Structures are given as structure tokens and as C-alpha cells.
């Protein structure tokens, strides 16, 4: 039986009079790829921020192996933020060196350069990178300290189809390494390809939870987007539509 690495109970987050996350309960098993699915404003990024330890919940809890988040939690997780700027004028090489310096036992830079295919633009100003190159660099930075859990917040948003599929390959490799991956997305195809378990969110609440196949089969629909539409009357962006 798989071990539960993160468990969420009664999780809530409010900003002034807006409730972004409204009572979530779920568990994430070690080594799985767990997806938070929903349209913009569903509460995905806020939920992810609380799982990352970057935001404090208004109510409820996030537990790590059944205990409160440890003080060195940040060294056990790697985070690829949705929109992260890097320092101007620094190259991917400079950034890898900088972030490696923050940890005691980082992954060797050569290994990261190889794994994330950074060699061709290793000494290019980060501001001149393409979207896909930038995401690969950000993922390498998130992995620099060999974390147990990797958080990916809409990792392929804004990427062209080729770059998106390249990144899926990278993420699949991370899965094969046995890491626990937690990602948010509003692309159905991405969720179906990458995720072992999904939570579909709307207005901060859980609509459904299960494996992608199980959700589609149980609802008797052809895909997740149709399922979401039938549940909420709202549509999610299909990857195929974006590609076309």
C-alpha cells in the first residue's frame, strides 16, 4: 500500500471577503502525479501555495507524513511558480550556480544541464529565452536540490505545442524517478497524460476526485472537458483548441 505524503483536511483560504479555497479534503500518495484541475479562479494556485508552505491556511491543515509541515519543509520541496522572473542579465548557467549555492548537497550542474537540455542556451541572457527554454530552466532550478516533492503551477501555459510536449517528456521522466509531482493545469490533455489522480475544483470547492479514466468512465462522457461542462456549465480550455 502506498504511503500518504501530504494530507489536506478542511483547507480554507480567504482574502478579505473573498473565499479562494473553501474546505478541501484530499490525500496525495508518495510517488504519484497529483493534478489540481479547474478554470481560472477555481482556487488551484492558492491551494498549491498552501501545499508548498508559501501561504498559511485561514482554516484547516496540510500535513506531511501525518505531521505538521517541518521547519525544513522548503528543502524537501521544489517549486516551479506560474510566473517567475529571474534576475535580469543572468544566464541559465548563472542561475543554476546561484540556486545550487543555496543548498548543501545540490545535484551536479552538468547533470541538470543534461537532464533539462539546457546546453544550447546555457550562456544566453535569461530574458532572451523562449517560453519552453525558460520553463525548462525554471524546472531545473526547482529540482536543483533534489527535492522529494515537486510543485508545478500551470507549467505549460503559454507554450507552443512543441514546447508543451517537450515539457511533458521532462515531467514524465521526473515521474519515472519516483518523485511526487503536484501540478495545476487547465489543459485536459495534459491532465490525462500526466496525472495519476485528479481533483477538479470550482469556486474553491472539490467537484470530483479520482483517476482521469475513472472520472470519465463513471460520468459516461468522452473527456474531462465534457465532464466539467456537464457539472458546472463552464468550459475548460482544451489543449487541442490551443494547439489549433
Amino acid at each position: 500500500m502506498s504511503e500518504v505524503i501530504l494530507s489536506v483536511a478542511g483547507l480554507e483560504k480567504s482574502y478579505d471577503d473573498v473565499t479562494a479555497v473553501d474546505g478541501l479534503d484530499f490525500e496525495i500518495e508518495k510517488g504519484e502525479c497529483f493534478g489540481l484541475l479547474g478554470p481560472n479562479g477555481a482556487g488551484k494556485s492558492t491551494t498549491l501555495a498552501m501545499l508548498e508552505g508559501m501561504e498559511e491556511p485561514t482554516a484547516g491543515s496540510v500535513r506531511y507524513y501525518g505531521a505538521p509541515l517541518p521547519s525544513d519543509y522548503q528543502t524537501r520541496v521544489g517549486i516551479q511558480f506560474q510566473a517567475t522572473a529571474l534576475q535580469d542579465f543572468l544566464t541559465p548557467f548563472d542561475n543554476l550556480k546561484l540556486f545550487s549555492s543555496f543548498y548543501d548537497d545540490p545535484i551536479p550542474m552538468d547533470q541538470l544541464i543534461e537532464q533539462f537540455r539546457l546546453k544550447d542556451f546555457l550562456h544566453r541572457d535569461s530574458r532572451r529565452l523562449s517560453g519552453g527554454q525558460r520553463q525548462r530552466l525554471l524546472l531545473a532550478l526547482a529540482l536543483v536540490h533534489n527535492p522529494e516533492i515537486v510543485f508545478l503551477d500551470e507549467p505549460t501555459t503559454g507554450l507552443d505545442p512543441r514546447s508543451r510536449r517537450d515539457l511533458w517528456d521532462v515531467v514524465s521522466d521526473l515521474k519515472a524517478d519516483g518523485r511526487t509531482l503536484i501540478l495545476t493545469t487547465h489543459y485536459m490533455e495534459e491532465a490525462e497524460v500526466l496525472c495519476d489522480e485528479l481533483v477538479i475544483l470550482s469556486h474553491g470547492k472539490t467537484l470530483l476526485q479520482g483517476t482521469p479514466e475513472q472520472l470519465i468512465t463513471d460520468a459516461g462522457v468522452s473527456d474531462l472537458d465534457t465532464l466539467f461542462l456537464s457539472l458546472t456549465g463552464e468550459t475548460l480550455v482544451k489543449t487541442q483548441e490551443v494547439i489549433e
Partner: protein
Amino acid sequence: MSAVGRSLRRMKAVFIARNLEYLRDRASFGWNLVFPVLIVFALAVVFSGPPRALFTITTIASDNLPELVEFPGVETIETDRSKALDRLSRQQTDLVIEAVDGSVNYWVNGNSASGAILELLLTYTETRPLKRGETDGDAIRYVDWVVPGILGMNMMYSALWGVGYVVVRYRQSGYLRRLKATPLTKFEFLSAQVLSRLLVTLTASTIVFVGTNLILDYKMVGSIWLLFLIALMGGLAMITLGLAIACRTESKEFADGLLNAVTFPMLLLSGVWFSLDGSPEWVQMFAQVLPLTHVLEAARAVMLDNAGFTDIAIHLTVLVGFCFVGMGLSIKLFKW
């Protein structure tokens, strides 16, 4: 590796990264060096002619002053005796007058022709007993007086904007949030920013100081090491002030406004371009709460009057106070 060793390693990494960013930004780097040099040369050219044909009298007591101060073409400034005599020895004023108990004390600079003329006029027009004092000292050129002001102004802009604006830009772009997700602490990040900008500020100031002095040969009679200490403390005080401004600010536009609100009074009231000796007392008192005032008063005392450490200790103490308050506020209030 010890906790301190790890902390130093992280600080060093951020320090190097910030320096790389600055050095590769050739436009900013060049401007930091070129701008003050241009101003120094422009002022040297503009004020290169003989002094204006206007007599300046500095008064110590304002009641029952001699009739001479009302003469056409005579400008008067009121200040305390110590400052007045300093001005006289630099020939920034032609005569110092103090009216006390039915008599008039006056001082002239033995090297000043204008002072001799005013002395003659005073003896002809004043009926009260006169008591004469004399100082000496060569006249200083405007460029001698203004160079510390320009170096200080450049340091102020470099320190405040180079840290304050950059930290807000990092925050707005999400870079600070990215750093928050690492073991880097607030103290390490802020210290690295301070040290990096201090290196830049001191290097730029040194290059401008040496470069312009080679050509303009302005007055520098005091200890170069003391001047360096003033630059070090002044730079730190203003960098930490910049950090305090940026510690929670999220908008670059708001940061712009705050930084202008801090730099503009210093530009006008700290004595960058002209002496505040003749200004109202409240202006002079307000100027004392501005770090640049202490940098410039200390720097001019060293450069023009050969002041020693004890002479400028009060200014250095105030600057150290600014550093502690600025850094303390920054660490306490800083938001990634």
C-alpha cells in the same frame, strides 16, 4: 559546514549574482560613472570665472548691526561664530561682524582684497568702538566646494534607487517569491544587497573622485582614509534607507514616489549645491535629520579644513544610527 558558513555561502552567491546583473547592465553602469563626471566638469566650466563683484558679510548677532550691512551690493548671511569664521577662512564671505554691548567685533581674512575694502568702509561708517580679528586662508573655488556635494548626490541616487527600486522590481516580478522558496533568509538576502550596492557605490565614487581630481585638481587637504570612512558610512546609511523604503512596497510607481520624496529634500536641503548657512533656522534643523547633510558636512570638513576623526565623529555617529535604524526596519518589515 556550520550554519554561519552556509549563511555566508548563500550571501556570497546573491552578492555575486547582483554584481553580475549590475556589471552587465552597461547602460546603468556607464551612467553611474558618466553622470557625476559630466556635472563636475559642467560646473567647473560655468563657475570658472572670477567671483561675482558682490560683498558678502556674515553676521553673528542680528540686533544693532552696523549701517554697512544695508549698503547696496552687500549681501548678508547670519550664522554662528564658528561657521562664520570657517566661511571667512575659505573666503566664502568677505567680513564677519558681531555687535555686542555697544561695540562691534569684526574679522577679516588677511588674504582677501574685498575684506580690506569692507574693513575700510566699516571704520568710516561705524561710530561704536571696533574690535578687529583676523583669519587667513585661501579662497576656495566653487568647484572645490561643490565636488563633495556631487559625489554625495551620486552616492545618494545610486544607493537609494539601486537598492530600493531593484528590490521592488524583484518583488513585482515574483523573483523574491522564488527566493522565499529556498533556504535563503531575509537577513542573508538583504545583507547581500547592501554589500553589493556598497561595493558599486564606493567604486563609482572613487573612480569619479580620482578621475575629476586629476584634471580639476580640487582642494583635498584632509585624510583620504577619513574621507573613505565617510563614504562608507554614508553609503551604508543611504542603502539601508533605500531598503527600508522598499521592504514592503509592491508597486514600482509607489516606490518612485517614495524615493523621490526622500531624495528631493536631500538634494535641496543637504547643501549639495549651495551652503545653508544663511537659511532659516528651521531649515537648518530639518537638514540635520537627512543623512546626506552629515555626509557632506563631514566630507567638506575633511576635504577643505583638514578635519580629524574627532571633528567629524558626531556626523559619523549619526550615520551609524541611520544604518541601524534602516537595517533594523528592513529586516523587521521585509516582505518577500
